[in-house]
C-alpha cells in the first residue's frame, strides 16, 4: 500500500534521527524489563527462603492423650497454620543429641529423659498472615490445660515478613514509576520526532488530503520505529542475559535460579510497537483543517 511505502521512505530518509529514536525506545524497554526481571527474581529468591515462622507448644508431662489431641485440633483448625508436628520427648532427646554431636556421652549421664512432649507449629508464610493474628492464636492455645508454655520467635517473624513486604512495595513503586517514565519518554521522543513535521502536515492538508491519509503514514512510521526499538531492546536483554548472567551463575550458583521467561522477548516488540504507535497518535494529534 502507498502509506506503507511512504512510511518506509520517510524512515529511510531520516535514518539518523529515526535510529536514535529506535535506540532510545530499545534502551528504555530493555531497562524496564531488566528492572522487572530483577524484581521478579528477587521475589522468587525470597520465596525460596524456607518459612521460619514456627512456634513450639510445650506440653505438660501429665497431659492426657485427649487433652493433647484437643490442642492439636485447635491448632489445625486455624487458617494461619501450615503444619502441626508432634515431637515426643524421645524425639526431642534425639535432637538434643545432635546438638552435642559426638559428645553425646554428656546426655548419657541423665537417668530419665528430662525433656518434654511438644508440638511444632509451622505458620503459612503468606503476607496476609499477620503477627497479631498469630499472637491471638497463641494465647488461645495457652488456655488449654495440657499446654505448659508456647515459644514463638516474634522478632524473627516480624523482620522477615517486613522484608518481604518491603521488597514487594519497593518493587511495585519502582516498576510503576518506571512504566510511567518509559511511556512518557517514549511519547516525548516520538513527539519530538514528529514536531518537525508540522509544516509537512500543513502542506498535505492544503493539497486536500483526508485525515486518514495524513495520519496513516505517521502512525505506521511510529509503529515501525517502536517495533524496531522493541526488537533492539530484546536483543540487548538477550546479550545481557548471555554474558552477564551466565558469568554470574558460574561464579555464584545461587543465581542459577534466575530465569528470563521466553514470552518477555515476544512482549518487547509488541510493547515497543504500542509505544511508538501511541506516541505517534498523540504526537500527530487531532488534524484540523
Amino acid at each position, binding site marked *: 500500500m*502507498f502509506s506503507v511505502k511512504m512510511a518506509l521512505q*520517510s524512515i529511510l*530518509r*531520516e535514518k539518523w534521527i529515526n535510529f536514535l529514536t529506535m535506540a532510545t525506545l530499545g534502551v528504555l524497554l530493555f531497562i524496564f524489563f531488566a528492572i522487572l526481571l530483577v524484581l521478579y527474581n528477587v521475589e522468587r529468591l525470597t520465596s525460596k527462603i524456607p518459612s521460619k515462622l514456627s512456634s513450639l507448644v510445650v506440653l505438660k508431662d501429665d497431659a492426657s492423650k485427649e487433652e493433647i489431641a484437643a490442642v492439636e485440633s485447635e491448632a489445625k483448625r486455624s487458617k494461619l497454620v501450615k503444619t502441626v508436628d508432634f515431637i515426643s520427648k524421645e524425639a526431642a532427646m534425639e535432637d538434643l543429641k545432635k546438638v552435642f554431636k559426638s559428645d553425646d556421652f554428656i546426655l548419657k549421664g541423665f537417668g530419665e529423659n528430662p525433656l518434654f512432649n511438644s508440638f511444632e507449629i509451622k505458620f503459612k508464610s503468606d503476607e496476609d498472615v499477620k503477627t497479631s493474628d498469630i499472637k491471638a492464636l497463641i494465647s488461645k492455645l495457652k488456655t488449654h490445660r495440657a499446654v505448659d508454655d508456647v515459644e514463638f520467635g516474634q522478632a524473627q517473624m516480624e523482620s522477615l515478613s517486613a522484608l518481604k513486604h518491603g521488597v514487594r512495595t519497593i518493587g511495585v513503586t519502582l516498576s510503576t514509576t518506571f512504566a510511567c517514565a518509559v511511556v512518557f519518554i517514549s511519547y516525548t521522543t516520538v513527539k519530538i520526532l514528529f514536531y518537525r513535521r508540522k509544516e*509537512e502536515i*500543513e*502542506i*498535505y*492538508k*492544503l*493539497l*486536500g*488530503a*483526508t*485525515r486518514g*491519509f495524513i495520519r496513516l503514514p505517521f502512525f505506521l512510521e511510529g509503529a515501525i520505529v517502536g517495533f524496531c526499538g522493541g526488537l533492539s531492546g530484546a536483543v540487548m536483554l538477550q546479550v545481557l542475559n548471555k554474558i552477564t548472567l551466565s558469568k554470574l551463575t558460574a561464579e555464584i550458583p545461587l543465581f542459577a535460579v534466575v530465569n528470563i521467561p521466553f514470552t518477555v522477548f515476544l512482549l518487547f516488540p509488541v510493547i515497543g510497537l504500542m509505544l511508538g504507535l501511541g506516541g505517534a497518535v498523540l504526537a500527530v494529534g487531532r488534524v*484540523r*483543517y
Partner: protein
Amino acid sequence: MIVLDKASKYYDAQAALKNVSFSIKKGELAFVTGPSGAGKTTLFKLLYLAETPDDGTITIAGFNTSNLKEATIPFLRRNIGVVFQDFKLLNNKTVFDNIALTLRIRGIMERETKERVHSVLKLVNLRHKSDKYPATLSGGEQQRITLARAIVGEPTVMLADEPTGNLDAENEDNIMKIFKYINNKGTTILIATHNRSLFTNTGKRVFYLDEGTLAKEEIA
C-alpha cells in the same frame, strides 16, 4: 464560480482584507494586483480555506465556505489548484513525489499518476529534474514545480499567487500559455501578480487591491 460577499479578514485588529466583494464566472481568467501587502495572498487563503473570513461569505466551486462541514474541506481543496507564493514544496520528497502527492491523495492509480506527473513536468520543461529534491533546484525551477503540482490534478479553479516572480521572460510566456490552455479547457483561473505585463492587453478583468480594499476593477 467564485463569489466574495463583503469578505473581511483581520490580523490582530489590523485589516488584511476589508469588505471585498466580487464574483468570477465559471471559465473566466482574471487578475488580482496591488502593492506589496495589499492582501492578495490573504484573499487566496480565504478562497482555499487556509483562513476563515472574520466577516462576509465566500462561495467557491459550489461550496459555501461559511456553512461547510470540516470533513468536506479536503474535497473542496481537491477542486482548487494553488500556486503558492512561497512554493510549499516538501523538501524530503523528490520533485516527482511532490507532484504525485496531489494524485495519490485522491487515490489515483500509480500508473496513471506516473503518466500525468511526467506530462506536467514536460509542460514546465523540467522533465529532467524529476528525481531531484526541491532544495537543489533554482528559484525559478521550484516555482515551475509548484505550478506543475497545481495543474496535475486538473482542478476546476486555479489560484496562482505570483506565479512568475522568479521567472525570465521566456518562461513567463510559456507559463501564461499554459494558463490560457487550461483556461480554454474550462478551468476558472485567478492570478495574483505585480507584473503588469502579464495582464496588459489581455482583455481580462483586473482587480486592484490596496490596503485590503478593492480599489478598482477594470478590463486590461
